[in-house]
């Protein structure tokens, strides 16, 4: 009896499939999740000027930092400058996302020389430097370039640390951020393959891989897309930034800052719950935000937090020690734009958030204009002397923030 039923169902299924029109294809990933009321919204993502723009044609004099600090253009002509990593000898490595290169910037007596270090890579957004080695996270793999600062003109081929991270070339957030943890493991994101979609078991996560053994582990789940992470130098706890979904309105949900304070793998809620307390109108049905770990701080809706670093350098005043700095790439999915700055988060003695305020501002020109900004911060790096570098992918420029003198 049971067998017959299965056969009947199978036969029905085939006949049905033949008469059915083709499955509708999913909408473009940025547009996906848009409610009917916003179908005609003209909000759209902004793209970088891939050929770069010169600082001389930009209003860099509008950039503002607190009293005692100074901001200046440090290097330019680095197309789509994204993630930053600083070598032991002071080489500044710069990645990009839409191109295929990794650049090395070398300071030669006050002039910066920009070399195209690596070519032909697949969305090499993630870079990390540790113990002489440059690690590069491409769309689907992580490679290592040992002794890189001695081989800036002949870097050779990278050795594969891990491969096959994106076997289906998933759409959406395919680029990776990469950071070396205090445990000697490489941490990276695997983003959600769209604005608001059900991820598979590796997606919407933070993972780590041991470069010695190749063993891959899950660090956090329910993370829509993290493009910045670092460790509190005091507690060794992992902190990371996360981008909330689009098309839930100008003020919802917040993008978030997270602290991983547990030994177990936390789930921060995507796609069911956003910012720890907003249930998703579609995926949240039958779920509760109580099931999920909460963010440490709500940063603002669509503000797009990218690179984040704990400041541990010797140049900034004492009150800046141990602060988190976050590069806000800036909102597109909001009628009144916000972000486009570097913000500062001050922690208390227990490592909880005490204060959140802008630190570097001036990129935002007109919050109602399209585009509203002339530059977009992506990542931060602390240089050997304690100054802070800020990358701007919209123009291909690095800015340097210093204090004193």
């Amino acid at each position, binding site marked *: 009896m049971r067998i017959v039923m299965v056969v009947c169902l199978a036969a029905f299924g085939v006949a049905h499939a033949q008469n059915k029109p083709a499955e509708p294809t999913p909408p473009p990933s940025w547009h996906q999740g848009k409610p009917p009321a916003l179908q005609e919204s003209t909000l759209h993502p*902004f793209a970088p000027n891939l050929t770069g723009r*010169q600082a001389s044609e930009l209003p860099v004099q509008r950039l503002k930092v607190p009293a005692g600090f100074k901001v200046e253009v440090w290097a330019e002509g680095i197309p789509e400058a994204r993630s930053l990593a600083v070598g032991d000898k002071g080489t500044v490595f710069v990645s990009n996302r839409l191109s*295929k290169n990794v650049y090395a910037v070398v300071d030669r007596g006050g002039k910066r020389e920009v070399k195209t270090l690596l070519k032909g890579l697949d969305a090499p957004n993630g870079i990390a430097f540790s113990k002489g080695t440059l690690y590069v996270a491409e769309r689907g793999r992580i490679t290592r370039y040992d002794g890189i600062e001695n081989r800036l003109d002949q870097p050779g081929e990278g050795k594969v640390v891990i491969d096959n991270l994106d076997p289906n070339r998933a759409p959406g957030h395919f680029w990776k951020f990469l950071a070396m943890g205090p445990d000697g493991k490489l941490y990276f994101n695997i983003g959600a393959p769209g604005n608001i979609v059900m991820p598979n078991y590796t997606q919407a996560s933070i993972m780590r891989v041991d470069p010695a053994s190749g063993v891959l582990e899950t660090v956090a789940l329910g993370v829509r897309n993290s493009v910045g992470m670092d460790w509190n130098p005091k507690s060794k706890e992992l902190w990371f930034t996360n981008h909330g979904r689009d098309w839930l309105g100008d003020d919802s949900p917040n993008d978030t800052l997270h602290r991983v304070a547990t030994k177990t793998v936390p789930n921060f809620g995507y796609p069911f719950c956003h910012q720890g307390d907003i249930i998703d109108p579609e995926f949240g049905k039958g779920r509760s935000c109580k099931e999920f770990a909460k963010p440490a701080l709500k940063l603002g809706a669509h503000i797009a937090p990218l690179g984040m670093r704990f400041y541990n350098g010797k140049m900034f005043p004492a009150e800046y020690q141990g602060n988190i700095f976050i590069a806000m790439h800036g909102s597109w999915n909001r009628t009144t734009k916000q972000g486009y700055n570097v913000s500062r988060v001050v922690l208390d003695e227990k490592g909880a958030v005490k204060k959140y305020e802008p630190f570097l501002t001036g990129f935002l020109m007109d919050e109602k204009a399209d585009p509203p900004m002339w530059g977009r911060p992506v990542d931060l790096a602390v240089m050997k002397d304690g100054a802070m570098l800020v990358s701007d992918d919209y123009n291909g420029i690095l800015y340097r923030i210093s204090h004193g003198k």
Partner: protein
Amino acid sequence: MWHSASAAAAVVALFICSGAAQAADIEAGRAKAQTCAACHGNEGHSTNPAVPSLAGQPAQALATQLFQFREGNRKNDQMSPMAANLSNAEMNDLAAYFASLKPAPATHRTAPQNASAGPALAKKFNCVQCHGPRLEGQQQMPRIAGQHYDYLLAQLRLFKAGRRADMDGNMTSAAQQLSDTDIEVLVDYIAGLGPQ
């Protein structure tokens, strides 16, 4: 180590940053654009239906495509070698020049039924959200209004087939939703839109 190696740096495009770098220069672009006219026509008004008109395109859209050709992301037998040796500054100059020109008048005649069906399709498939309400382009999104029918048709088919480079896969995914008929209706409509 790198002191001795710098002279032999054949691997790399190498340049020194200086404060004297120039902004995009329309006149320098005009001089370099003489080569482009053979295919793209005088003043960026192409008469070859397979070759796009460049006049009045947003500068960022033009520079983006030159970059994509040079980097090998977008491939074309004529354009790939043309872009291969252009610097970023030269691309910005060329882009500034073509952006400064008056768009070509539309030469295509849209079939009446497509003229009425086109606007709704352009909204439904998100063309207007990025290319602008009149499809005249903005930022990295090109002006498609009044572009050659043959060129638009070929590009949309390439996007649908996943064979045309784009920004973050946006056009590739947008084109996945289009049926072959949708493509023909949209292209017939868009190619006939004149500058306003």
